[in-house]
């Protein structure tokens, strides 16, 4: 089974929730009782159409204010794929939610209101999706019904967006433009007769064709040890298995590996998935590995192939997204969680922060506010084993935890 995670972002009235509702409705994923609830509430509110946003806005405050506050997860499937949508609000104050939603997604949909064109928020969504190295981005130019399905409006917006693309850091991103009307259903699931000038795919057709092989960022294999399994039963008396998830590439029985940080070498003896022995542990599988030699490995250590060592260092520079209402200050100390490994980190210096309107950078900063994105240098109490985020989406990222509140207060992407 294939699972595709998609992040969506849009401004308040772009019709993002309506688009998701339309996807659910046209793929027949909305069940009768949910549809009835939507009909009932739409009527109560005096709408003459079905308000599909009611299918996704889950919290009382959201329904009262007609906005999305938090990351909501929506599920639908076709015979070909299961889809998970991480729906996030697009205001500047919700940058943290957009970063969160994008971190677990392989594709993203950016919505643009055809009447308004490319605005500051479009810029922000694109920047974040590019920063998070999302492989496939769909720019859905929505509300085409309100601009008479005009090709020139569509082309002008496309040209404006392409101008933004010149500035992007991650050039490997695929970007597709689709003219849609979420409210009326044009080019979402079904091909529209109102846009004869558009020869591309509908939104769902495009998603259906994304290939698992192309959509994941790949890197070198990394195996952070989550848990050591020692059954101590008669049958498995000497069994010492290292449980974890494989990232970046695959591992095979017989591979020569190094345990970090001890730098001890050994060979992979067996790979278990539950009670089955496998030859290969594929990317993103949760397996248990045993080694030929009795070497000391515990949680937080990492197994890597001999020829593919990561960087082992106590300092680095990263782009961070600050997520807490309490400011980040130069010199501040946090717990840094890199994968499953935790160390103490000190903010060595803040080099610059990116202006909220993405017009440039501000180098004169010594503290960060919630939703700021900045370049920061860190010093750690112990070395970690990392790759640059551009080479390894998992092993190049980390979160910051406040030592007093225990809250997750920031996310970082290593240079």
């Amino acid at each position: 089974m294939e699972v595709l995670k998609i992040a969506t972002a849009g401004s308040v009235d772009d019709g993002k929730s309506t688009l998701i509702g339309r996807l659910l409705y046209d793929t027949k994923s909305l069940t009768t009782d949910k549809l009835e609830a939507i009909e009932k509430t739409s009527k109560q509110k005096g709408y003459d159409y079905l308000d599909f946003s009611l299918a996704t806005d889950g919290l009382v405050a959201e329904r009262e204010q007609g906005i999305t506050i938090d990351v909501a997860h929506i599920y639908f499937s076709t015979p070909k794929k299961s889809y998970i949508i991480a729906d996030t609000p697009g205001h500047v104050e919700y940058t943290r939610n957009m970063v969160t939603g994008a971190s677990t997604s392989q594709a993203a949909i950016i919505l643009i209101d055809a009447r308004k064109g490319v605005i500051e928020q479009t810029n922000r969504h694109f920047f974040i999706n590019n920063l998070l190295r999302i492989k496939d981005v769909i720019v859905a130019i929505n509300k085409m019904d309100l601009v008479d399905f005009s090709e020139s409006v569509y082309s002008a917006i496309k040209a404006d967006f392409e101008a933004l693309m010149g500035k992007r850091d991650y050039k490997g991103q695929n970007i597709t433009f689709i003219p849609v009307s979420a409210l009326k259903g044009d080019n979402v699931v079904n091909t529209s007769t109102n846009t004869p000038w558009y020869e591309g795919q509908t939104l769902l057709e495009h998603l259906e064709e994304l290939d698992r092989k192309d959509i994941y960022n790949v890197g070198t294999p990394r195996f952070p040890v989550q848990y050591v399994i020692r059954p101590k039963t008669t049958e498995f008396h000497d069994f010492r298995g290292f449980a974890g998830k494989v990232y970046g590439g695959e591992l095979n029985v017989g591979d020569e590996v190094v345990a970090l940080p001890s730098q001890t070498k050994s060979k992979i003896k067996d790979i278990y998935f539950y009670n089955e022995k496998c030859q290969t542990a594929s990317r993103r599988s949760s397996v248990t590995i045993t080694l030929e030699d009795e070497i000391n490995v515990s949680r937080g250590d990492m197994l890597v192939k001999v020829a593919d060592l990561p960087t082992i260092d106590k300092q680095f520079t990263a782009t961070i997204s600050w997520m807490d209402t309490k400011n980040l200050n130069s010199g501040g100390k946090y717990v840094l969680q890199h994968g499953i490994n935790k160390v103490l980190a000190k903010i060595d210096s803040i080099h610059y922060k990116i202006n909220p309107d993405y017009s440039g950078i501000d180098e004169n900063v010594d503290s960060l506010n919630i939703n700021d994105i900045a370049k920061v240098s860190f010093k750690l109490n112990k070395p970690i084993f990392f790759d640059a985020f551009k080479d390894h989406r998992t092993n190049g990222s980390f979160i910051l935890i406040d030592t007093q509140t225990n809250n997750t207060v920031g996310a970082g992407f290593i240079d």
Partner: protein
Amino acid sequence: MKDTSYINPLENEAIYIMREVAAQFENPVLLFSGGKDSITLVRLAQKAFYPAKIPFPLMHIDTGHNFPETIEFRDRLVNELGLELIVRNVQESIDQGKVKEETGRYSSRNSLQTTTLLDAIEEFRFDACIGGARRDEEKARAKERIFSVRDDFGQWDEKNQRPELFDMLNGQIEMGQNVRVFPISNWTELDVWSYIEKEQIEIPSIYFAHKRKIFLRDGLIWSHSDFVYQEDHEEVLEEVVRFRTVGDMSCTAAVLSKAEDIASVVQEIRESTISERGARIDDKRSEAAMEKRKQQGYF
């Protein structure tokens, strides 16, 4: 020999989460209701720690109004797998005067479970409770985290949740707090049923078509039972039904079905136009019924 690329990504994710629980917490517990979701959790936990045993106990908050088939199944499973089972009863909370039994037409012990659960968490000092809730079940659950921090009172602060990035789960808590963990957050009802089919997991017989004494109310099929309030004019009928979701007898409605085996159940779910929680009477109370119960410490 094969590779692992055939493995369902949702299963890989759930196993990863199980292992994080065992590694990050001192005293975790798996909340077991005897329903298909918690049975699936047990299988995932077995897979996560094989060949070692599951390193935490199961706990059942028993309303006393369960389907007898569920309890029988629970005891057999625990026995076969050699697991530790803790049972705490809602009846005790009622006897101690901590909660008051609901009365009338829609009375149910479902929401009373919260008090018994919170007391048990305190009694055993559990710092992590693994549950089978899924985000696709209900709108408020769609906003739930995989590691969801609860305060001393077991409450869910929905506006102040920790962001969860990539695979990284932050389980750091203060004394008195605990974390609710949802390894199958990203599964849909169909995913669960397909998994049960593929893994050939045994489930209680009430999930399959059987003859049952029922009555009709508000367009739903209710079980005729001592635990369920029934008015005189509500006629007892006998129908072939099955349950799609299993909670208390007083809050779980049946569906007409001829699905006698797992393959026909999966087929039925695929073609269904009613959501799973459409058969949960407890959710019909109001649009925000689940959000309110969650804030108070319910699952």
